[in-house]
């Protein structure tokens, strides 16, 4: 035990980092007089029967004022967009994990994947409950362990076998980046002298795969360095961003538009707007429907700590609440002061269900929330893999304590959480 660790470094661009943190939007500390006034107003509004419809009139995306952007400027006639205002209100409250759900987990537990050296990760759930995993096969070559190939696999709800969707020979120039399941498609980034997006059309059972779009979108990597690719698949669009050699980031959308942005913590898509929460806490919005329009949202809400969407619903998670916006109508505003949102992450949404993982105080715990009632419950596990739990495509994916074999439960089977 005498070889040294790598030498320590100073934080690069520390001055810029602290400046960005201090400039991040934060919710001002509450003052009692304001709370009192707000309380009086609240009571008056409830009495008037108009509270719900006035909780948030609109969310506007205003055009940016900064110059120097490489993105074509928005047209003046399309400078704002409106997100439907929530019309209902709920209060988040924690309830015990229902006993009958434990039986459901046991009923839907799937077999472990084939044994072998490598790394296995759940990447999504198909429309029929197929669990899509990816596995890196690692082999010993001489004294080194090398990645020999990557495999996308599918395991069905009602069978224990595993079907190989596609293998990539890591010895070639191909390697899989992000994979997401989006409705009936499986989207992925992959590399071949750059990064491209591809799309598999879904087949029943996913025993075969047909590459229908390749590439759906190609990043121009001629003179760039795509250090990071993050993919979000949605019904109306694909958002992907890359980190380039010069330190910039770029959002690329399915319709061919691209926008400069910053490092992204989470993103969501609602209608044709891509919402980005940056690591510095700021919010960006891009209208991919308008093709060339870029916008900066101004919202009369506390700054977000996470964004999530499933194509139909978008969750805007802020310090004390959850705003649920829907494509086709108003959503719900939820008072979530009982949730330690500041230490939560990995929010996911699927229909009326949301999931997230919370890192505080010390043991990662994942939760499941019924957005129609505000009731939430912790998944009964203390596994360090809790971050793999979540909701996807109408299913709850629950990581078992044995290491990784999942249980996949149709969310419809859960009923309501009161």
């Amino acid at each position, binding site marked *: 035990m005498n070889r040294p*660790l790598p030498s320590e470094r100073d934080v690069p661009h520390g001055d810029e980092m*602290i400046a960005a*943190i201090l400039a991040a939007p934060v919710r001002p*500390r509450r003052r009692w007089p304001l709370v009192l006034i707000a309380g009086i107003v609240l009571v008056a509004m409830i009495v008037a029967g108009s509270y719900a419809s006035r909780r948030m009139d609109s969310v506007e995306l205003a055009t940016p004022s900064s110059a120097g952007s490489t993105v074509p400027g928005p047209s003046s006639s399309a400078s704002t967009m409106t997100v439907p205002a929530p019309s209902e209100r709920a209060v988040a409250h924690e309830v015990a994990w229902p006993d009958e759900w434990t039986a459901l987990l046991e009923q839907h537990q799937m077999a472990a994947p084939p044994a072998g050296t490598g790394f296995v990760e759940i990447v999504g759930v198909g429309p029929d409950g197929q669990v899509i995993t990816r596995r890196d096969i690692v082999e010993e070559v001489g004294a080194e362990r090398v990645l020999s190939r990557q495999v996308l696999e599918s395991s069905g709800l009602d069978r224990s076998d595993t079907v190989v969707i596609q293998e990539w020979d890591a010895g070639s120039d191909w390697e899989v980046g992000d994979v997401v399941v989006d409705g009936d498609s499986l989207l992925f980034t992959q590399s071949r002298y750059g990064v491209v997006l591809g799309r598999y059309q879904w087949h029943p059972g996913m025993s075969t795969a047909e590459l229908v779009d390749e590439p759906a979108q190609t990043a121009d990597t001629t003179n760039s*360095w795509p*250090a990071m690719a993050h993919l979000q698949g949605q019904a109306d669009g694909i958002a992907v961003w890359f980190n380039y050699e010069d330190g910039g980031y770029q959002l690329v959308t399915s319709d061919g538009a691209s926008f400069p942005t910053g490092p992204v913590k989470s993103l969501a898509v609602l209608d044709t707007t891509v919402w980005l929460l940056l690591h510095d*806490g700021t919010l960006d919005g891009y209208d991919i429907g308008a093709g060339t329009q870029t916008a900066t949202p101004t919202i009369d809400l506390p700054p977000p*700590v996470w964004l999530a969407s499933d194509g139909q619903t978008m969750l805007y998670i802020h310090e004390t609440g959850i705003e649920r916006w829907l494509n086709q109508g108003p959503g719900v505003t939820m008072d979530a002061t009982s949730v330690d949102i500041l230490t939560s992450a990995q929010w996911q949404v699927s229909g009326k269900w949301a999931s997230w993982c919370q890192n505080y105080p010390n043991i990662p715990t994942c939760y499941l929330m019924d957005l129609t009632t505000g009731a939430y419950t912790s998944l009964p596990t203390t596994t360090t893999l809790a971050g793999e739990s979540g909701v996807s495509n109408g299913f709850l994916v629950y990581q078992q304590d044995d290491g990784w074999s999942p249980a996949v439960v149709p969310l419809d089977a859960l009923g309501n959480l009161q």
Partner: protein
Amino acid sequence: MDTGLAAEANAWERLRRGADPDALTELFRTHSRSVYNFCFRRLADWDAAEDATQATFLALWRRAAAGRVEPLRAASERAVLLGMARQECQTVARGKLRRDRLAHRLTEQPPTVTEQTPEEWWEAVETMREIRRALAVLSAGQRDVVELVCWSGLGVTEASVALGLPTGTVKSRLSRARAALAAANFEYTLGGAK
């Protein structure tokens, strides 16, 4: 309490009273390097460590703005910050592992850095990845203790605060970790590297 620790505690107390930019800046200047390198050793990735560092101090800043900074329970807030950083690393690691591997394979060249040559940059990353693989012989709890006590220099009491564990548990995990690493012929120092 010496002068340095008193100043730290003062800055922490100012943050407890509200979002004081000077206090956060002071804490950042004092501890960002420690947090950054802790995150690097946990993630084996300089970029991810940078993100986790920013997320750690942003979380503290937001807590200060919300009036939710907790009283200092350790001798130094470094233990609290490393505890927060540990959680942020977990969040960052969930999404970045593959993207970073992809990037590495694609480019085989590092981004522009000012303090190290490209070779030093990747050598550090590769070395840290090798160390992380070697640490797989330990349980997650034992790895936490090694990272905080051996590599980041926290005392057992401070580590217990960061991890929310009794000091006895930290001690036993540390002892078992040392034994397991010795048995596995772990080649790297457990004494930290400055």
